[in-house]
């Protein structure tokens, strides 16, 4: 056994095999999250892929790296463990708590897989590739509906894969990566990313999700602000142009559904009329905060709001849901992930942290519109942001990081 291990450690072929395995299963798993994870029985594909990713990551680090951890690794698992307190005393939703525990495990697998790949460009490129593949899949499935312009305004696409608002969330990530490439790419023909950016935006709007629209606007403006923050006139001009384009786009006939939903939301905020969807969501969030404050320290446990409120669903707001289910302590531990990414980013070099900013700002904004803490893609994005904002090179962890050289040709 020792001989085998020693041979494997020395073998470059074995090293490549495990590393390529990490690449393949990382990409495949990311593709499977939006494509299969909410479609029984295909959801088992996701489980198999994440298990295989875990095995390859473990083998690679065991043979060629290290499992050193720091507080960044501990926070999400600590959050999951703390959730057990409220779950035991109030919600008793142990099955859902197990989901949290598995998400914590996935978070660790993601962080270690980034360590294996040890190349931010590659990580982002693979993420972009997998979400682009999903977008194509979506496009193929809804080909007829997308080109049926007469009826497109009346339907919300995406339920084949997941809740339509959830599908909108996948397009937000794809859109923001594409925007990041468009704005920060050093490639000569970086402008080419305009095409996927528009493609993701259009596919996202077909879901009719207001959260999608508002989140991409926030994410886009964050990226534009960061990119042109030193050129104030240009920043102002681009912002005006973007606002005008978004406003014009909303008046296209096939976006009338989304426009109406958005306007009714604003009308409600101004107190003009009653949009039941917005009213209910607002009341649910207030209700969630109420239940949370009444269980101040540890909350009502995993899925506590769903179990206790009588409502039978979630609060439709991440802040309210966190306070309700995990109390102030769970809330602080979870959002410390955001704080750590921001704190690390001040010392980190390169432009990847700007993408992380856009994602984090978008998620903070999204927190008032939807619940995302138990979403697999959110866990991935949080771990990605933590990784992209690291104030030191991941190679610090690795005994031998020479594998990185193989992938230096990927310059985006």
């Amino acid at each position: 056994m020792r001989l085998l291990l020693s041979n494997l450690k020395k073998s470059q072929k074995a090293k490549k095999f495990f590393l390529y395995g990490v690449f393949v299963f990382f990409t495949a798993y990311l593709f499977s999250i939006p494509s299969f994870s909410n479609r029984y029985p295909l959801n088992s594909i996701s489980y198999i892929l994440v298990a295989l990713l875990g095995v390859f990551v473990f083998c690679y680090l065991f043979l060629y790296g290290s499992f050193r951890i720091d507080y960044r690794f501990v926070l999400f698992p600590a959050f999951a463990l703390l959730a057990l307190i409220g779950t035991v005393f109030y919600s008793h939703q142990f099955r859902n708590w197990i989901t949290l525990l598995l998400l914590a495990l996935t978070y660790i697998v993601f962080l270690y897989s980034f360590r294996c790949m040890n190349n931010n460009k590659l990580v982002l490129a693979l993420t972009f590739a997998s979400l682009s593949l999903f977008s194509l899949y979506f496009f193929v499935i809804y080909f007829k509906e997308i080109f049926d312009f007469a009826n497109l305004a009346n339907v919300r696409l995406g339920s084949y894969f997941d809740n339509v608002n959830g599908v909108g969330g996948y397009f937000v990530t794809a859109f923001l990566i594409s925007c990041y490439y468009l704005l920060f790419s050093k490639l000569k023909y970086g402008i080419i990313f305009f095409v996927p950016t528009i493609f993701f935006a259009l596919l996202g709007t077909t879901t009719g999700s207001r959260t999608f629209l508002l989140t991409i606007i926030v994410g886009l403006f964050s990226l534009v602000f960061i990119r042109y923050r030193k050129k104030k006139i240009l920043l102002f001009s681009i912002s005006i142009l973007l606002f005008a384009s978004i406003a014009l786009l909303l008046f296209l006939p096939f976006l009338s559904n989304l426009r109406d939903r958005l306007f009714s939301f604003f009308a409600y905020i101004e107190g003009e009329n009653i949009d039941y969807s917005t009213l209910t969501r607002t009341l649910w969030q207030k209700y969630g905060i109420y239940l949370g404050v009444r269980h101040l320290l540890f909350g009502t446990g995993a899925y506590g709001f769903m179990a206790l409120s009588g409502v039978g669903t979630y609060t439709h707001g991440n802040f309210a849901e966190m306070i309700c289910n995990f109390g102030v302590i769970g809330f602080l531990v979870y959002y410390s992930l955001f704080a750590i990414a921001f704190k690390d980013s001040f010392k980190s070099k390169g432009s990847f942290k700007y993408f992380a900013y856009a994602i984090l700002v978008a998620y903070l904004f999204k927190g008032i519109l939807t619940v995302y803490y138990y979403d697999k893609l959110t866990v991935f994005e949080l771990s990605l942001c933590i990784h992209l904002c690291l104030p030191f090179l991941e190679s610090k962890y690795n005994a031998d990081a020479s594998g990185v050289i193989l992938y230096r040709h990927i310059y985006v």
Partner: protein
Amino acid sequence: MIKQLLQKVKSLNPVAQRILAASTIILSFALLFPAGSFSASANVEFAAEYFSDLSQNHTIDGQYSYLLIEAASENGPSLHPPYNEYYYWNNVFGKTKDVFFGVVNGNKENECYFSDFGNKETLTFVYANVFSNKEYGEHWKHEFYDFELMFEGEDTSGIYYSFCYLTQSQANLIIDKETPTIEEYQNLIGNPVSITMDGVEYQWAIANIILETTNAVEVCNSLFGNFVLGYTKYPQDFNKQHCYIFNKYAYQNYYKLNYIISQFNPSEYVFYLGTNNYDGEFEMGSQNIDDMIFGKGISSTPLMAVLLSAAFVFLILSFYFCYIFNNLEKVKDLLITLVAIFIPYVIFKGLYLLFGNILLFSYQSLLFYLIFFVIFLVFFLVSKIWNKKRGVVKE
């Protein structure tokens, strides 16, 4: 004079300094509890607890109490259609959906009974304005209320005043048999039944029979006793009302009340406590239900503002004392500060558990408490930076 006072404070011995800093913290956080209890939200919470207590301890079934809402005048805004309301609650409270009924004579204020049979017990109408029942196994289901029906049902009013659905027990009384056959029930459909409403006799056509199988029938029986499901036409004095049903869970009642507040302006609608299912011992007293729900009872914004300002002044004072006494650097002092912050929480929680009055430990107070705690945390971080600049060494 203030300078002299500050000099005196600065020259206090360490124990007195700690006591002074801790007292201002305790006072600041303690004042938040009375401040919160004067908020409108505390009023709603109090009302929610009131309904919870009412449902459990003062009703015949010990399960439900109810609130009736009707338009204040004929020219005012009308109520939402019961259809919309029912579907709102069905979507929101999916698992416990018997939250809402559209009713007429919900508090039995109008004299109204079957003219020809029964014990003249006053009737309540559960009213419905649309008509599209769904097939449900061998029976039918009412299009939105959770009533199981014998037949599909149709508008049988014809020459009669309006039409109604009778419960199976009422149908049995008319047929005068304990277990009639389906044909005998079927023969009732389209026939008139006389209902005396405030002394005037009206002929209602029987359109369907409600099977007494679902929870909704149990809830209606428990709340209203004798009831029928009636179509939308009623004599002038019989007002349509929204009936919201409350249960023992105060937090669920809190949600329902918040919804009611968001939907109904107290100047345009009249609110009544449902009284039909009270047990004999309960008396309503002088409670005004509008005031209780809409925050005119105990809530007082000026008083809340005064208390909150006082709490804030004490918080600033505590910051000042902590800063000049370097009270956030040593672990021991930090612990004393933390304990001081939590003492009011423990005291008021204890008082709440002892007396059971929600106003002692209201949601709004806890929210204020949380905000002040965050402010204190921010101050702590800022003071760390300041102390670093001042060269204060941590022990």
